């Protein structure tokens, strides 16, 4: 870890547990230790249901860890993480607001004048390639376009940290690549700290500076941490052709594969039991 950069997000042995309906305690994540340096792009990869999103919610302050601590820029996190912008997996836009109003709201609630907020929002919509769609309602936009609006909505507040929960999960393969490149382009402009959750290892390597692997739940742990030294700026589709990419992919996959099989076995057993 480069000690010259301040740590944007630090999880110190964070354990997350939920109380189940029958009073048992389900430990989702156990003693997760993770740090994201300022300006660093970290991807978390793990099998389905391993608690990746849980970890992200802890970093966002939406969930409190049962044990351990969360520090944001070396300050213990109290309540919601005000330095972070969160891009959700599910549709999170306000359906009753047009695209431009959805983006402008982030500024308006800080007390910015509406005219100014709208102007900035139009700028951000143009930046994500939706300048001509500002007066559409979310249901009139495609899944990819909604994600673009979501990205603009989060970025207009200029958060120091970006938390992303499988943001391109529901999109088709081509749109995912386009969105990945858009994300890298926007990120390249001012290098925020990014914590990016995905189940797609290729996407993780193509985007991130570091790839963190989680084990299958329950009691998921962080079991691997790889540095991706592919040069930037990258193009998502081209970077996949490189030799270094394939070597790294093979190396990480050899670890991840076992966990994916474990996670799959558990989910099928759970399905049979119920």
């Amino acid at each position, binding site marked *: 870890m480069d000690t010259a950069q301040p740590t944007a997000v630090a999880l110190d042995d964070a354990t997350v547990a939920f109380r189940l309906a029958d009073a048992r305690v389900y430990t989702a994540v156990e003693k997760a230790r993770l740090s994201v340096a300022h300006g660093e792009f970290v991807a978390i990869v793990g099998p389905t249901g391993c608690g990746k999103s849980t970890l992200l919610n802890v970093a966002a302050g939406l969930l409190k860890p049962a044990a351990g601590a969360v520090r944001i820029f070396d300050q213990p996190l109290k309540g919601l993480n005000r330095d972070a*912008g969160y891009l959700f997996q599910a549709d*999170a836009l306000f359906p009753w607001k047009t695209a431009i109003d959805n983006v402008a*709201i982030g500024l308006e609630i800080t007390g910015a004048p509406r005219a100014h907020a709208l102007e900035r929002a139009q700028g951000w919509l143009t930046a994500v390639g939706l300048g001509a769609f500002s007066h559409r309602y979310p249901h009139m936009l495609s899944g990819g376009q909604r994600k673009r609006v979501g990205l603009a909505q989060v970025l207009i507040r200029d958060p120091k940290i970006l938390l992303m929960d499988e943001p391109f999960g529901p999109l088709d393969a081509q749109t995912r690549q386009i969105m990945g490149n858009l994300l890298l382009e926007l990120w390249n402009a001012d290098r925020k700290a990014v914590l990016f959750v995905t189940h797609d290892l290729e996407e993780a390597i193509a985007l991130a500076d570091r790839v963190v692997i989680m084990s299958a739940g329950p009691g998921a742990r962080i079991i691997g941490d790889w540095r991706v030294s592919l040069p930037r700026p990258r193009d998502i589709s081209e970077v996949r052709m490189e030799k270094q990419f394939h070597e790294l992919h093979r190396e990480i996959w050899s670890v991840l594969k076992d966990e994916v099989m474990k996670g799959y076995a558990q989910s099928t057993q759970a399905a049979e039991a119920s």
Partner: protein
Amino acid sequence: MSRPTLLFWQLMVAVVALSLWQFFASVPVFGKMLLPPFFFSNPVDVFSQIFKWFSTGVIWKHLAITLWESILAFVIGSVGGVLVGFWFARQPRVAAVFDPYVKMINALPRVVLAPIFTLWLGLGIWSKVALGVTLVFFIVFFNVYQGVKEVSTTVLDNGRMLGMNERQLTRHVYWPSALSWMFSSLHTSVGFAVVGAVVGEYLGSAAGLGYLIQQAEGVFDVGAVFAGMFVLSAFVILIDIGVTMVERRLLVWRPTAAEGRG
């Protein structure tokens, strides 16, 4: 089916039904009238009655009264339903305390309240408005309550992560959600506002469409009863068209304007 053919067949249904009615009410079959005019009147008499109402202008006063009562019942019931529904949804403890009483009042057939309202508020429009309000209030109340309760947690979390405080969440998330559910029950609540007005008039009043029908029935003028019913249906259809137009404007952000829930 193309639009003109559809319209043609729809018109044919009316023509056939009215012809049969006219035929059996005026031509004896096997020496017996199947639809005795005393009980069933006939289309010609009914429509001449309607024509007379409109040509002399008597009907306008009654229509205006019924419309005014319906509007008042709708507005008062909706405002009350939105406010109370919103309050209950945001204060689960209040909702839990009042829950059995809300259920109890809602279980009561509202018609039995009409005599009490007449006693309290007299024979004027306010006893009818009150009856309409008791109907409209609960529809709006339940819809708004549900709407606020079922706000998507992702949208809520998004609002929080964007930095909204509770007041801003109320304004930008809970409130639009509640209103959209209110609008989705617009057809039902407007319909019930009219029902409240007409039933109230029927049970005791000095003006309105319900009064007109009740008066005709009192003197066994079946033709006028049917005429009143036709005017009433046309009145409700016109209001419904108006509601649909309002709804299209207000719910543009919805994929398809949802059907009302009663």
